[in-house]
């Protein structure tokens, strides 16, 4: 008894001692560490300038052959050059590794001329062989096609005809040949990899690339460090380092921005955006959205062979009911209330930032907010109001629809609640039910209405392709692309037509027509485009190029413009004409780009005239 008591006491004493020592250590560490960071902060000018971005998504792999997550595909844009890039101002395809390109008359052979001044970061030149090797590997090894295989599905062969010329032969004409968003890899390093499915490209640092930034360090879930490539052919970035720092919680990200631990945050909620709006030394950016928000109405889930499945409400198969339901949606109110005015109400499928392909209904075509029209349509179609004010169909089933909403998206939930109220006025009941994910409901076709949203790339081909009849599953539980079980032969025909239309304007007309067809079917109902909300420390970053310029976003660009062009505070004078006036800044960042653009002579002339005039005015101001 006595021994066990003393043992227990010793145990307790040891425990207490250990605890106190450790807490003491933690407390003692505090002043020392603060001092250390202070020292670092007040360093001299030789300190490298760095731009830190708060991120949360995990890195799946650093290998461009298998990386499928947004964070990694974004980084690959900064690390590796692609054949082509997108102009930040116009969104049009501009040269990158390929300086120029030609097409054969039948559109089946594409010849790319590779620039001769591009080098890998280990000093080797970038050649046509590298390009041919990258594409050929994706065509022959399924493991290498995991991430970007969709680009080469239609390729017959890719060959380097000389050191700086690549020839791609296609099976069918394909319009996306100027939107091959595939990182080109150094053959002299990658040809030594035996298994592309297992190779993560994270064993040797710095990673040899050809882009404006070099990945030098990767600490999983802590940070990723990229350094400026001083030899980049378009010019070296002005920040010495680009650091991605892992902060999982969105609110903690905002606090880290306020405390200055990170310099850039993206994906803000409207509430966070408003809170940061009046902060000192912080600039907020509400960019035109790349993404549309929408609902899909279940038109009867079915397989490609027409076999129906799921338990979608039969009334939604009636186009009149769908049209009436769409008449009850006040898109303006959704963006005004749920998104705090930070977004654009618009029924077009391709967001308005892509003005080449964007379509929106004319006044005659518009199925706008009109409850009376909804009631009239339903009355005429024989959906009479039942006892509780809910209309009943000819089959006796009330118009009561399940509305499953992404529960982690407060804006969706709020908009859904608003929609339920409007629908009620037309005698339709929407039972709003937030869910953790809608994918399994879509898989099984067990839904009536779902929320959805897609990021749209500069080339609209993919986002158009998800609505093809061939996007439906071939067997229950099999893979599919569809987001709405949409299938319309006219839409399919137009899709095939635009795919081989190499003239941009003619193609745009077809793409617009496709959007009109989609709009009229009322299955994929777009609300509009929420702004992409970002914020950065204006005491660290003096300026950056958005995309589109102006009015666009910095993070998640199709290109590397923002980080490549970002100017550290204190180094503004190094850039041409950057003496404070906005006009001067614009001309400064644009001249660098325009040099590389083989634009039409008229445009260049007009810009030169414009620049001269602006230079003149700023010079006058200075004197």
């Amino acid at each position: 008894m006595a021994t066990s008591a003393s043992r227990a006491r010793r145990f307790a004493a040891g425990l207490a001692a250990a605890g106190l020592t450790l807490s003491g250590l933690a407390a003692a560490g505090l002043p020392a560490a603060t001092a250390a960071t202070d020292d670092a902060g007040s360093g001299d000018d030789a300190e490298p300038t760095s731009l830190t971005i708060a991120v949360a998504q995990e890195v799946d792999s650093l290998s461009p052959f298998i990386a499928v997550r947004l964070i990694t595909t974004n980084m690959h844009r900064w690390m590796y050059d692609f054949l082509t890039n997108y102009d930040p101002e116009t969104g049009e395809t501009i040269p990158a590794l390929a300086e120029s390109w030609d097409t054969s008359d039948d559109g089946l052979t594409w010849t790319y001329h590779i620039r001769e001044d591009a080098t890998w970061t280990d000093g080797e030149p970038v050649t046509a062989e590298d390009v041919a090797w990258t594409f050929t590997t994706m065509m022959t090894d399924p493991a290498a096609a995991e991430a970007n295989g969709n680009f080469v599905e239609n390729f017959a062969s890719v060959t380097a005809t000389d050191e700086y010329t690549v020839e791609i032969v296609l099976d069918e004409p394909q319009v996306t040949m100027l939107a091959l968003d595939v990182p080109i890899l150094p053959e002299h390093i990658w040809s030594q990899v035996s298994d592309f499915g297992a190779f993560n490209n994270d064993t040797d640092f710095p990673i040899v690339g050809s882009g404006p930034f070099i990945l030098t360090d990767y600490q999983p879930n802590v940070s990723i460090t990229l350094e400026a490539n001083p030899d980049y052919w378009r010019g070296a970035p002005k920040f010495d380092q680009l650091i991605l720092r892992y902060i999982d919680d969105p609110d903690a990200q905002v606090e880290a921005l306020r405390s200055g631990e990170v310099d850039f945050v993206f994906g803000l909620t409207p509430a966070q955006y408003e809170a940061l709006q009046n902060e000192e030394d912080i600039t907020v950016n509400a960019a035109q959205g790349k993404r549309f928000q929408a609902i899909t109405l279940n038109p009867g889930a079915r397989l490609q062979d027409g076999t129906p499945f799921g338990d979608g409400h039969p009334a939604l198969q009636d186009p009149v009911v769908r049209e009436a339901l769409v008449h009850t949606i006040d898109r303006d109110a959704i963006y005004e209330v749920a998104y705090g005015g930070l977004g654009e109400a618009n029924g077009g499928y391709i967001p308005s930032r892509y003005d080449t392909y964007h379509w929106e209904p004319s006044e005659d075509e518009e199925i706008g907010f009109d409850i009376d029209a909804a009631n009239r349509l339903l009355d005429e179609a024989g959906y009479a109001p039942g006892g509780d004010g809910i209309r009943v169909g000819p089959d006796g089933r009330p118009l009561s629809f399940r509305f499953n909403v992404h529960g982690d998206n407060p804006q969706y939930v709020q908009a859904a609640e608003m929609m339920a109220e409007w629908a009620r006025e037309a005698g339709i009941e929407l039972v709003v039910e937030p869910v953790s994910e809608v994918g399994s409901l879509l898989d099984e076709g067990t839904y009536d209405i779902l929320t959805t949203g897609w990021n749209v790339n500069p080339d609209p081909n993919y986002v158009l392709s998800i609505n093809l009849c061939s996007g439906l599953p071939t067997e229950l539980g099999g893979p599919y692309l569809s987001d709405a079980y949409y299938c319309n032969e006219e839409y399919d025909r137009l899709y095939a037509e635009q795919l081989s239309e190499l003239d941009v304007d003619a193609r745009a007309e077809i793409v617009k027509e496709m959007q009109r067809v989609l709009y009229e079917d009322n299955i994929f109902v777009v609300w509009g485009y929420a702004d992409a909300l970002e914020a950065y420390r204006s005491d660290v970053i003096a300026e950056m190029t958005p995309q589109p310029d102006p009015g666009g976003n910095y993070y998640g660009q199709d290109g590397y413009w923002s980080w490549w062009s970002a100017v550290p505070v204190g180094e503004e004078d190094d850039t041409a004409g950057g003496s404070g006036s906005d006009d001067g800044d614009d001309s400064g960042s644009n001249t660098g780009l325009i040099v590389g653009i083989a634009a039409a002579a008229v445009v260049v002339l007009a810009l030169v005239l414009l620049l001269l005039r602006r230079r003149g005015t700023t010079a006058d101001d200075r004197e």
Partner: protein
Amino acid sequence: MADSALPTAPVPQLAQSVRDRSGVRRRFRYYGEKLGGSLVSLFAVILTSFFLFRIIPGDPVRTMTHGRPVSIEQQEQLRREFGLDRPLAEQFWSYLTGVLRLDFGDSFQFNRPVTELIGDRLWPTVLLVGTSVLVSAALGLWLGVRCAWNHGSLGDRVNTGVALTLWSVPSFWLGLILIVIFASELGWFPTSGMESTGVEGWERIPDLAHHMVLPLVTLVAVVYAQYLMIMRSSLLDEMGSDYIVTARAKGLRDVIVRRRHAVPNALLPTVTLIFVNLGFVVFGAVLVETIFSWPGLGQLFYSGLSVPDLPLVQGLFILFSAAVILMNLIADLLYPVLDPRVRP
């Protein structure tokens, strides 16, 4: 009410032990039963882990490729890569045989073996959560003794009040409040992470301690009430005992009565509690690690759940459960050593 929710000491099956041959057999059976029970639990965990996470809605391939253009062929290739195209029974069999070889497969989202990922994340979690268990136990037990000895006093009421209030606070909320006040407004501590970039050598230790303060305070604040309350109530029980009256009657000083007589006996129930909590050490604190971006197992689990990254969450689930089972077993085996009254 709080007390009833806490784990209690195993009920002694035999109050007195007679040291004879049947006693040896009984003891052997006691240990055998405990060990066997643990193994059965572990096996049940391994079985459920496979099916549990397959019930979670969500398609790993869709989540992983979210927002990116992928063709049906690419989706099928990923499915093959993940082994999700095979029949469920076959997947289960390869899972089962893998687990027995301590091979949990490759994580979908990191494309690396799960055991390797767990190895990377184990130490940050053990450091943070282990320290928090020790600190909260020390703090809670110490305050619990004070409170019980002076029960009913103002100090007792304030201490129990504060402890219980903090206990009912959600940890992620408290963490965020601490970040707002001490990291962002006052700038005393970093908002998140475990290390600063570019700190080398011995300087990493103060840097680590600096990063650890806020998550540690959060973890301690929300749990120390457990120790305080159980220590307080068990000491209050002891204080009415005859041997305490005897000790006082002998004329021992108050401090001696408390330290030598009352506290050692009152400590016993807290042993179970400490071991149960040590079992949860590897589980980390999912929410606190996530709020503070502490690169530990809890954060790993959270990131795995949102995919769902099946091999990863299965492996972690087994690890977490095994730790709790093991620590409970140790508590069961240790208890008779500490308390002769429950010796089998």
